[in-house]
């Protein structure tokens, strides 16, 4: 079975690099697609903009979503993912620096599947990515695909 895509929505190049590095160190072989702002993420998911023609039914196995993003904010991306029945079941993990209660609460209200705060310590970050990969990509039973 072909390894499914992981969509990373993150605007900070350093964080992108570190995440990619963490994935590599964690031996996660899934393809990592990076969207550098909220709009790009939505375009990818709904085959709009530069991703016109992409098969919408090919959903990522996991969306890693930062909250603070240019153009469309993370919570709005999440809201639109959940509002569209094609994508409403996709596992979305919030991966962000914020530990504000209201951010956490709002994310869960919008049916985020998980909320992870990026630790400053890179070693711990790698650990977090490892656990997350193991959980979502191996242990977790993915949602059934909706076919229209």
């Amino acid at each position, binding site marked *: 079975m072909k390894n499914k895509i992981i969509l990373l929505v993150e605007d900070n190049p*350093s964080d992108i*690099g570190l995440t990619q590095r963490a994935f590599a160190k964690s031996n996660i072989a899934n393809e990592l697609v990076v969207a550098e702002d909220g709009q790009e993420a939505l375009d990818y998911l709904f085959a709009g903009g530069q991703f016109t023609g992409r098969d919408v039914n090919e959903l990522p196995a996991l969306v890693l979503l930062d909250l603070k993003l240019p153009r469309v904010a993370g919570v709005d991306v999440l809201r639109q993912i959940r509002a569209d029945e094609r994508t409403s079941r996709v596992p979305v993990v919030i991966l962000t*620096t*914020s530990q504000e209660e209201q951010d956490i609460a709002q994310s869960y209200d919008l049916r985020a599947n998980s909320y992870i705060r*990026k630790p400053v310590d890179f070693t711990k970050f790698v650990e977090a990515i490892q656990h997350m990969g193991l959980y979502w990509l191996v242990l977790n039973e993915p949602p059934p695909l909706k076919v229209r």
Partner: protein
Amino acid sequence: MTVQKIDKQNQGALKIAFVYFVVGSLWILFSDKIAGAIAQDRNVLTTISTVKGWGYVIVTSLLLYWLIQRHTILLRESDEKMASIIHSAMDAIISVDSLQRITLFNTAAEKMFGYTADEIMGQSLDILVPEFYRAEHRGQIDEFGQTGITNRHMNGYQGITGVKKNGDEFPIDTSISQIELDGKKIFTAILRDVTESKRAETALRESDALIKAVLDHLPIGIAVNSVDPAVTFNYMNDNFPEFYRTTREKLANPDAFWEAVYEEPEFREEVRKRVLDDCAGGDPERMVWVDVPITRRGEEPRYISARNTPVPGQPLMISVVWDITERKQAEEAIQRLNETLEERIEERTTQLAAANRELEAFSYSVSHDLRSPLRGIDGWSLALLEDYGPILDEQGQTHIHKVRTEVQRMGMLIDDILKLSRITRADMNKEKVDLSGIAETIVTRLQEIKPEDRRVGFDIQKGLTATGDPKLLEVVLTNLLDNSFKFTSKRQEAHIEFGQTTMEGEPAFFVRDNGAGFDMTYATNLFGAFQRMHRVSEFPGTGVGLATVQRVINRHGGRIWATSEVGQGTTFYFILEDNNK
């Protein structure tokens, strides 16, 4: 001169004539018979007749003399009696003839006017009358003469005055009578000097005026009235109708009070009923009515308070009323001020909330944006170490480790600042908090993380509670106990205590340890953020813990302080405002 006396005089004259008539008739009847019996001779008879004639004349003359003299004596006695009555009278008696010339002036009149009867007899009455009044006075007497009324009290003529010989004028009270004798009018006046009674009257009037002035200048309204139950006024001062916003005239009719004072019928009946009920009871304690509004359409309302006091032994009340509008207005002003104050507080609260929201946004930004680069530095330092470690010497690798340590520290600092700011804006939910229970939980955690070779004795006083926010108070105890745990780390036998004692008469909680302590000289900024009393190499830390503790205590309206001695240990005391309530 009275009518009676004139009759008596006439009687006297008739009596004389009658006696004369009887004697004369007897003489005529019997003298000739007697003479005829004595002599028959014509010549002798003629002689006898002549003698008889002379005798008659002599006898009757003597008789007349005797009768008239007797009568005159009687008359004189009567006159003298009259005169002595007149002259001994207390009141002045003055008679004048129709030309108003003085014909009688008694002793009292002499005393009153200072003239003797002799010098004034026959003079015009005018000299006893003030000059300005003479013509009018003369007219009054003439007019009286024409009425035919026998006597009249001169009360109708106010302020009659007389003039003394020395020119002094004085008030008199007089009555006048008239008689007609031989077609001539005689006016008699009886006069009394009323200087004294006038003076008493004036004194009374002045005293009344004084009392009135005093009452009218009182800052209260006073009235004397009956409540039976119709309110009828016997007296009221100027302020009484004034304070009730009516007039003296409107209150003149019995029971006009209610209508005149209370314009709104429903309220009028309410007040009337209450006041009459209170008065009917007769209990002075109940006859007090406060803060009663007196309204007039189109005008600002005024307010009064009133009290009734029964007059002992009489069906009367002394009603006192005072204007309390100013006090009422002041109260209203204060109330308005309070309302605007509330508005202002609300406004400020809104502003404060906005500031808080801004602060939250700032904290968010700090949390998110400052941490990201740190993670980058840490991550890429580690990448450097991992990817290029072999080509770095030991020194180079140490440098990278130091970079990472500093990054961790910075991360901790940022986290602590965020905690501090969260403490400041967290919602407070005050309730009864089991401080001993919280301390026990913390101690259990500390015992779990303590290295095996450390020996720490904990002494937590049981049953300590306080009113406050449980989460925030947990932050306080966590910080203080963690500190004690940290600063006793180099102690062989560490001892940490939490309890309650009395400081300056107030119950204060304390956390005491026998740790490193610090020099009180440098303790001025003990609770400032990032203030540290020890080197990081000795005891790690960011210097935010005590600042956080103090903020929590401040938010509870309490205070915190510490005593310490280097090498001996430290005690932190804190008092919460609502402690144990």
